[in-house]
């Protein structure tokens, strides 16, 4: 069966969402992941969009941004960003997704300054709502390209806090809850060791070896005893993804 790597990743993302959950939905692959979950295993999930939208139905047409008019049509609620952030800060958001340019072994994300703020090699767009999701959602899922330059021992700048320097850090700095639960990459799926909060490879995509993943990671990556193979998208899932992204803008080759 033929599918693209982004389609595999979106399918894996969709499987992170449980029915009835309140999900803070982002852009691009995370958005597609939510739409796919909403159409399959999580029909009663509620989507919260930081620009001021809550909806519990699919948009009537494919969208490229959260603000495309079909995403406003028959929404459950159109309001202020502060209202959405209130839901998040109260702890009412179960799950959220974040993309990143640079991640480290404890799941801290940098989408601001490669090289750091004082010696800027590359300026990236910044946090948007990512820092808020990473700080306040019950859990968040990271979606990234798996390259050695992106998977570094320590990020140059923490835009979105993960587990900081390990177990207990979030509580120490005052974060009320949460942390990264899963990292879905172009090579596999990673989780965090409950004791150390260090990233650990738990599943590899079809045709990828654990050694290849380790070779593309900037620190000695821990691997689960028997890493699973990431399940492939089903025909049904692929058909739905083609509806959500007909031009393959996000999920094409």
């Amino acid at each position, binding site marked *: 069966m033929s599918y693209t790597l982004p389609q595999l990743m979106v399918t894996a993302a969709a499987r992170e969402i449980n029915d009835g959950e309140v999900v803070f939905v982002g852009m691009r692959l995370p958005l597609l992941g939510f739409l796919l979950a909403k159409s399959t295993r999580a029909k009663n999930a509620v989507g919260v969009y930081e620009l001021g939208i809550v909806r519990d139905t699919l948009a009537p047409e494919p969208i490229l941004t959260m603000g495309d008019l079909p995403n406003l049509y028959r929404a459950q609620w*159109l309001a202020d960003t502060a209202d959405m952030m209130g839901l998040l800060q109260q702890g009412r958001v179960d799950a959220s997704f974040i993309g990143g340019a640079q991640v480290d072994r404890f799941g801290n994300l940098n989408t601001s300054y490669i090289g750091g703020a004082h010696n800027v090699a590359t300026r990236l767009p910044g946090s948007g709502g990512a820092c808020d999701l990473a700080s306040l959602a019950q859990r968040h899922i990271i979606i990234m390209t798996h390259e050695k330059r992106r998977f570094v021992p320590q990020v140059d700048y923490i835009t979105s806090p993960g587990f900081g320097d390990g177990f207990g850090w979030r509580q120490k700095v*005052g974060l009320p809850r949460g942390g990264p639960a899963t990292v879905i990459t172009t090579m596999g799926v990673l989780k965090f060791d409950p004791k150390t909060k260090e990233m650990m490879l738990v599943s590899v995509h079809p045709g990828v070896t654990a050694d290849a993943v380790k070779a593309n990671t900037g620190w000695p990556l821990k691997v689960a005893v028997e890493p699973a193979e990431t399940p492939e998208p089903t025909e049904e899932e692929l058909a739905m993804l083609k509806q959500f992204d007909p031009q393959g803008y996000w999920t094409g080759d």
Partner: protein
Amino acid sequence: MPVNKLLPLSEAIDRFVPDDSSIATGLAQETLIPFAAGHELIRQNKKRLTLIGPISDILFDQIIGAGCVRTIRAAWVGNVITGSCYNFRRMVENGALEMEDHSNLTLAMALRAGAMGVSFMPARTALGSDLFKTNASLKTMNCPFSGDILTAVGAIKPDVAIVHLQRADKFGNAHAWGNLGLTRDACLASRRIIVTAEDIVEPDVISRDPNRVITPGFRVSAVVHAPWGGHPSPVPGYYNRDHQAFIDYRNQSKTPDDFAKWKKYWVDNIHAPRDYLNLVGKKRMAELSIAHHDISEPVDYGY
């Protein structure tokens, strides 16, 4: 009788946005971005502006590229469907821009503090992040009751909020609908408000639905009639997002020379609003217009 505040775009920007102004704009995030007003800032060659907004979606990059900006107070600056913006990236990497790095939540609270007339707002976000290193408006504090560690976000009070909305009367009373983002608090936090609107309507069109008012007239400095003034961003009730324009901008702004060409074509050569509409063209405007209408149920404000 209230004052007629209806002005041409050029006069509104000239009178109410001097050099060195701090401007809150692009406040609804992806929708209702005041591109027409932003381009007028460029034509008038404003200097040393501070731009305040959550994400901006290419407008900030255009004003930055034109050399009008000294300081950015924002959560994200880029092109939502393509990623990085080149003028912004180049100028930060060259140290030519002062950055205050916010998250959407901290910026929302900074403007809400301004709107409420207090010097800060508490939040629980960003703790442990490096935003504190590149944002002097953020401090950690302890809750006076629980002792919990919190983020104190300093108030932002912009000199002017520039908002693009669907309809306004000549007194500045205006309706907005759709996702509102930070619009409400940003307008209330700002010393002045400039409204650009798709339609200028009779006062009763606004006053027959006072709950939909986002800018009460007594707080507004200028009202501008700007059809398609939000293009290429989407305007609920008027037109859809022009994705191709955002993709084109990415491809046409990679180098300073490319951007100069883009700017000449889309900004400098616009001498009247009509000129811009001609550039967009009837065909594209027809493609972007609302095909499936969905009309709100009326409500009664009688007595």
